[in-house]
């Protein structure tokens, strides 16, 4: 993390007003985390965001000339700035040629197919973390996905094939959970396609008051990215929430056609 981004992260945490919770996450990373605080900055990071985007949004929000513009208008402008300054410059010609995937083509939406790693780690809502002796489990509410992060130093099995969530190893040192993931099947990264060469290095930290979990993840993929792409996500400590089974997935078109309402 650069000094600038670190400074900005500190500023963001000061800006974020935290609802009173039963108690801070005294157990460290373990426990239930969920959507970011209901603040302009938190909502901007509902799925994922970048420090560049947060800084752009901050400037827009602070500019009196924008007082009469809606929040949605300002976030749209900030996201366009991120696309132009952060995302597009690092996409390879191959990734650009493959095109941006429309949300209407999201396999999760159209086919009830669980998301892959690069989308699942940003999934909204709950992320319950369990720390075990030799591994950590991240349980994401969206798609009820369980992700194992080995902390015993093991290597991936020989001839391991790429999979939806890949193979993750990690360690906790000096308050940072670092996770490295390989063997990720080709999928979507912020609506752009990535190859099975994608690797990710995640850094999780907790705010001093124990209320905010922040992830910085750096992606590398020689097919899709000319340089590492760093993206951020924020969760709020949410001990009162629980994860329900992700059942009853119905493809919207099936729902419509089965009722004879298709046009």
């Amino acid at each position, binding site marked *: 993390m650069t000094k600038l981004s670190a400074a900005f992260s500190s500023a963001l945490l000061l800006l974020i007003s935290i609802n009173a919770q039963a108690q801070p996450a005294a157990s460290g990373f373990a426990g239930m985390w*969920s*959507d970011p605080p*209901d*603040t*302009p900055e938190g*909502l901007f990071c*509902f*799925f994922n965001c970048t420090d560049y985007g947060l800084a752009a949004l901050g400037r827009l*929000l*602070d500019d*009196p000339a924008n*007082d009469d513009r*809606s*929040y*949605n*208008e300002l*976030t*749209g402008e900030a996201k366009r700035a991120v696309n132009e300054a952060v995302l597009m410059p690092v996409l390879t010609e191959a990734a650009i040629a493959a095109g941006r995937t*429309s*949300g*209407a*083509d*999201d396999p*999760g*939406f159209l086919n*009830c197919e669980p998301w892959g790693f690069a989308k699942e780690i940003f*999934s*909204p*809502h*709950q992320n319950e973390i369990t720390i075990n002796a030799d591994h950590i489990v991240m349980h994401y*509410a*969206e798609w009820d996905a369980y992700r194992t992060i080995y902390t015993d130093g093991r290597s991936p099995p020989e001839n391991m094939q790429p999979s939806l969530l890949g193979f993750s190893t990690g360690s906790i040192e000096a308050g940072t959970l670092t996770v490295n993931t390989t063997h990720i099947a080709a999928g979507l990264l912020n*609506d752009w396609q990535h190859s099975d060469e994608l690797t990710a290095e995640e850094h999780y930290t907790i705010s001093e008051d124990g209320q905010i979990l922040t992830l910085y993840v750096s992606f590398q993929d020689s097919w899709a990215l000319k340089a590492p792409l760093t993206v951020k996500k924020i969760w709020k400590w949410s001990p009162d*929430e629980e994860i*329900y089974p*992700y*059942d*009853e*997935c*119905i493809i*919207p078109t099936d*729902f*419509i056609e089965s*009722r*004879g*309402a*298709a*046009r």
Partner: protein
Amino acid sequence: MKTRIIGLLFVSIALFGGVSSAHHSFFAVYDGQNTVTVKGTVTQFRMVNPHAMMLLDVTDTDGSEQSWTVEFDGRLHLSRAGWSRDTFKIGEVLEVTGNPAHSGSDMMFFNQSVDANGAVIRRPRLELEDSIEEQRRQRRAQRDAQN
């Protein structure tokens, strides 16, 4: 189709100020700048994944019926806001406002409903956005007070 239902629609430009994207890329399917309102009877309400869905039988001025599909945020999102399978009941008559599909089909993304007693249910995301705008007003007041 548009001709037949035009009498039912009250299209208002950006009534809700541009609805933010759901995580299944709302803008790819729906027109976030416009809204439509229809009145009809609930025939289905399913709190399913990836998004909750409703079917609404809407009677046109000429007596013909259309089945409108109303899409909602994901079940996880709605559940966190206190919604349940019983939030809407089969047979209930509702006036529903939402963002229309780009395709022009009888679909919308839910913004709000008003039942026969005038009770309003809003999309949780809109409640949150109202809260965000209020926070912006407070920050502006603080900024103005400092200047």
